């Protein structure tokens, strides 16, 4: 059955490539023929899984590129197809008919809910976890249940955990994985660190005893340095810790070496620290990581810049409050006048519950520098109401028709920011591109 499954996957991938399509259909077919196909693969190289709420695609892509820059052969699901079928598609495509996967490293981005299946199907060497935030609660259920699922899955894991030391919800995974080693990455206190934080909705209580977690400082959301009031839990000693040189210039250092983050924001530097922790663990020279950070293409919708009718327009994807808050911070940093387009959809991939907009600090847009806000999308009026109740007094325009909403942007003689939920991202890009100069 193994041959048939691999053959079928290859054939389907080939046929799809003829019509310039990717996707996880080949893996779905292969799993139908042989549900245990992943277990039957012959893999002798290290396998690195990357999971977490935010930054898993970027981090996974950076790790894969870092190995490639170091002249290693890498198999990876770079398109972010991170469910069971997508991962199967990616591995079988690379495998020989006898099931050998020829690679120096396998790097897989894995959706949190698929960790149990993947970890029991493959000989995993290292599991990288970026962070845990509330994300589309109606699909992923409550975050606590999600973490418990991951904890159960790693109970027998005897590889290495590579964990964000500044996220207490991530660090607790080590308690669950008694046989595993752990390496920790973090960022030192910096210009953006705060001692109080209104954005933090997780990480309030100690995962060991339920006592209060006391923060020495917050970096963003509940990411920071903490200890339990009962002294049984704290930020662990870190193996790889970066220090910010300049958030604005995206510069940070580790061990006297200077790095330039591929995107703005402190959260990007955390992704980079995860990469450096992996590099350190596998004894890869840091210069390859540094080079990767410099040359990495920014994926669609992450501070993606357009020239729209002669003005700068920056497009961002938002999918949860924490990611959205980081986008707000980047906009707030811009001291110039600006016009903002917010596109809020509520299809399944966006999350059908839009209440997360009340956990996001749109208040950061509420000042006289934001001269005009245009709301669109299937829940455009909900978006406008959020701004109204945030106290925004300048011009709010609601335009149900996306094309008209984007057209309305071009009247702006300011910098423009477009923010879109998942299903709105590509349509907005197309409209911006169409009018790009």
């Amino acid at each position, binding site marked *: 059955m193994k041959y048939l499954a691999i053959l079928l996957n290859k054939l389907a991938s080939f046929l799809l490539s003829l019509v310039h399509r990717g996707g996880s259909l080949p893996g779905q077919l292969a799993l139908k023929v042989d549900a245990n196909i992943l277990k039957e693969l012959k893999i002798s190289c290290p396998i690195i899984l990357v999971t977490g709420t935010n930054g898993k695609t970027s981090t996974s892509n950076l790790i894969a590129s870092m190995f490639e820059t170091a002249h290693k052969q890498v198999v990876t699901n770079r398109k972010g197809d991170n469910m069971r079928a997508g991962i199967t598609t990616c591995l079988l495509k690379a495998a020989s008919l006898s099931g050998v996967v020829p690679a120096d490293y396998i790097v897989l981005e894995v959706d949190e809910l698929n960790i149990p299946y993947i970890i029991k199907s493959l000989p995993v060497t290292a599991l990288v976890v970026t962070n845990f935030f509330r994300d589309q*609660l109606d699909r992923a259920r*409550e975050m606590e249940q999600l973490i418990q699922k991951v904890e159960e899955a790693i109970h027998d894991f005897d590889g290495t955990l590579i964990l964000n030391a500044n996220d207490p919800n991530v660090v607790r995974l080590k308690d669950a994985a008694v046989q595993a080693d752990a390496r920790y990455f973090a960022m030192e206190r910096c210009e953006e660190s705060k001692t109080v934080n209104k954005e933090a909705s997780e990480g309030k*209580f100690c995962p060991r005893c*339920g006592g209060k977690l006391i923060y020495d400082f917050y970096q963003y959301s509940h990411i920071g340095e903490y200890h339990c009031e009962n002294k049984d839990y704290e930020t662990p000693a870190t193996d790889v810790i970066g220090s910010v040189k300049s958030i604005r210039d995206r510069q940070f250092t580790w061990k006297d070496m200077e790095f330039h983050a591929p995107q703005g924001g402190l959260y990007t530097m955390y992704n980079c620290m995860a990469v450096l922790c992996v590099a350190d663990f596998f004894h890869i020279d840091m210069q390859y990581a540094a080079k990767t950070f410099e040359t990495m293409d920014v994926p669609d919708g992450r501070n993606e810049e357009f020239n729209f009718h002669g003005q700068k327009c920056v497009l961002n994807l938002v999918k949860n409050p924490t990611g959205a808050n980081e986008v707000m911070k980047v906009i707030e940093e811009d001291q110039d006048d600006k016009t903002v387009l917010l596109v809020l959809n509520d299809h399944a991939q966006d999350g059908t519950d839009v*209440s997360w907009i009340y956990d996001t600090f749109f208040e950061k847009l509420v000042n006289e520098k934001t001269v005009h806000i245009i709301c669109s999308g299937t829940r455009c*009026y*909900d978006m406008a109401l959020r701004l109204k*109740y945030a106290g925004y007094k300048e011009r*709010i325009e*609601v335009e149900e028709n996306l094309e008209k909403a984007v057209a309305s942007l071009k009247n702006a003689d300011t910098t423009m920011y477009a923010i879109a939920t998942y299903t709105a991202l590509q349509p907005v890009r197309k409209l911006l591109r169409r009018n790009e100069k």
Partner: protein
Amino acid sequence: MKLKVCWMYHDIMDLYGDKGNMMVLTKRCKDRGIDIEIDTCAIGEKKDLSKFHLMFLGGGADKEQHMLIDDLLARKNNIQKAMDSNTFIFLVCGGYQLFGQYYIDANNEKIEGLKFFDYYTESGDNGKRCIGNIAIQCNLDGEEFMAVGFENHGGQTRNVATPFGKVIAGYGNNFEDKIEGFYNGKVLGTYMHGPLFPKNPKIADFVIYKSLTKEYPDLKFSDLLPLDDSLENKAKNQMLKRLHAI
């Protein structure tokens, strides 16, 4: 005029953007020249709830409900005193459940409720949850009108004698009964998130009015100055249309 609000366990019971309800109360009071003061009450904090005009308790995950239940039960006499002295009580999701007899969570653990009312909550079969947009015809002291929200709960609340409204689209208290929430003139409990108030300004105003009557018993609902709710009504109607409720 001044409205004094106590927001219970605001730091742990804050699921699904329910803090938006407090934003709406604040703006709608201020726009009418009514002072509003929102105080919070954490676990272990001393507070006489009967001194407030409104008490609000939102929703939280199972873990959070376990965490605060002892503290909440210890306040039972004080909450009774608050109700007896006409403090209005607004409860969402988890808060609503805890005012009943008991709640059985997703892991089949039983949490004893405050037992003020006869309703009780059990977990859905096979972990099934009531999730999605919801439209109800609510009835508040004889005022009937449509309301919209988003529900997301595993708990099935039964034995509600006086519901908040009749379900037009969605689930409500459970998969079968076609009724939503609880309202007895003094306490309003609901599964409706969204948050509830932004798209339902009339309910927000009703809660403001009911709360103020504690100190101003002659106040009528119609005494509240009308505000421009065109955006609110468009948001509400957009959803009602989609749910074929208008």
